[in-house]
């Protein structure tokens, strides 16, 4: 682990979901920024450059999938992995996963414990994959 805690962007139009996930991650020592829709999340991601994005799929204005596509298209965020929290896991096609950085899909109702475990794994993989990004 680096000295500065990893920054995680949590996006969901359900305030309670954002609240509970953010609390779980903060309690585990991460820095958490939150957004309530896709557009707000994209703006925040560009400004905050998070290490990981945890997003809902079905959201107003910009869906979770569209958000991940935009992240992939943005140079500074192209490597940022994403975790999708969705009640519609079946609707994410293989090609959608392939052209985005979605590395995990968790179905609602989800377990905050599992979210935390997957977060740790994904950040560890990120360090292995992009050690220079972590160093920066």
């Amino acid at each position, binding site marked *: 682990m680096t000295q500065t805690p990893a920054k995680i962007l949590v996006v969901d*139009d*359900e305030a*309670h*979901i954002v*609240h*509970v*996930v953010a*609390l*779980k991650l903060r*309690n585990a020592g991460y820095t958490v920024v939150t957004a309530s829709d896709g557009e707000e999340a994209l703006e925040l991601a560009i400004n905050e450059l998070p290490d990981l994005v945890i997003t809902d799929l*079905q959201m*107003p*204005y910009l869906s979770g999938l569209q958000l991940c596509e935009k992240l992939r298209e943005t140079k500074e965020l192209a490597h940022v992995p994403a975790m999708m*929290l969705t*009640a*519609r896991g079946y*609707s994410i096609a293989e090609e959608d996963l392939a052209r985005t950085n979605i590395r995990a899909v968790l179905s*609602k*109702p*989800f*377990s*905050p*414990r599992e979210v935390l475990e997957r977060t740790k794994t994904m950040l560890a993989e990120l360090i292995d994959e992009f050690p220079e990004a972590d160093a920066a």
Partner: protein
Amino acid sequence: MATPRLTFLSGFAAALAGAAGAAVGWNAWQMLPIADPVLRGGAATLAGSLALLALWTPVVLVAQSQFRRLCQRVNTCASEGRPDAAPAPIWLRPVARAMNRPIELWAERATKLQSSMRETQIQLRVAEAERQHIETILHSLRDAVIVTNAFDELTMANAAAARLLGFDTANATDRSIDDLISDPELRQMIRDARSSGVANKQRHVEHELTGSAADRKDARSFDIALVCLPDPSGGCAGVVTILRDITRDKEISQMKSDFVSQASHELRTPLSSINAYVEMLIDGETQDEATRQEFYQIIKSEADRVSRMVDNMLNISRIEAGIQTAEYSDVDFVEVAEHVVETMAPQAKLKDITLSCRYGPLVYTAEADRDLVHQVIMNLVSNAIKYTPEGGRVTVSIENDDASRSILVTVADTGLGIPPEVKSRVFEKFFRVENYKRVAKGTGLGLNLVKHIVETVHKGQVGLESEVGMGSKFFFTIPYTQDDMASRLGAAA
């Protein structure tokens, strides 16, 4: 039948008379005392002619007279089926006997022909009546039906087909499908069905109709059934093509599928919250009692949300099935509306929306089911808040509408407004305005439930006035009961 018989017998009599005349002429010539061969020849000719004439007239007269009698008898006997009932004179009996058999045969044939003709006429009338029945049935069908022959020419089409394919039934018969059907794929289907030659085997093809039908704004989907009509040799004498418009069925199917998906999502979201907060409590992630209390409240409110959603779905099902039982009481609409406004105030505040209630000094009551009326106003206010941008205004007003003898409740907002082309559909089950799906979540059930509660349960009416960008005004009326009218009139007096 008498004329041919008479003609035949006249000829026979004439032959007899001619033979007799010739015999007399020959004898007269033999007896003349003329030596000159020329004179002798001329005199012989003259004598023969005179003798012929002298004999011919009575013979012909007698023959004609006998012949007429014979004819009458023969005709009478033939028509009565008793050829021997009145015997002919002895000298004509062989002739009569010879004539009777063919005449009997002709009479039998004539009788059979007459009977057959009557049967044919009856069959023709029955067939005509049946044809009219079939045509009436065909024309009353909603499905378009066209019948083509072995040359792909139209032999029959109903009104629905004429409307759909854009031709006039009066001028369409015997015309080729190339002239009448602009959709090339449909023409090919008919040709394929005819050339396949498999009689009575129905084929179904789903096809989106183009061509003249595409003049309309949207192409429509059809289930096309093609049946080959058998000919006596087992081939295909023509094709019956039935086009059923399944556009609406497909839309409903899609809406249902969307609804199941949406409802599943909507139910999973509060369940996720409940699950996550409970797990946080179990894992001791809360630092103090105040946070734990906050979690308990969230779990309670999310459980209520699930409950409300399930209630919505069940209520619609019950009302549709006609088993919804309303508990009528004297409902104070102002009290109900204020309760809704109070409940929804936090949600409005989140978007900085001004939510208010407006009414006059009168007491607005009607006999209704309070909980159902509460749900109607709640659904309308919830929708208004969802589709009104931040800083907007939502107003609930209650008034008496004496013209319709009803309580009139209006929920007006300064929101997005409903596009005119979908205004008539917003109360349909599962329907959601396509462009607004991204603005807010919903199951497409709220307004349908409003309509059911107001119109089916309370015999009132729902309505909508809206302009895109200017906001919407949803209203409903609940009729006064007789008692309400009496108390209101009494209070006024």
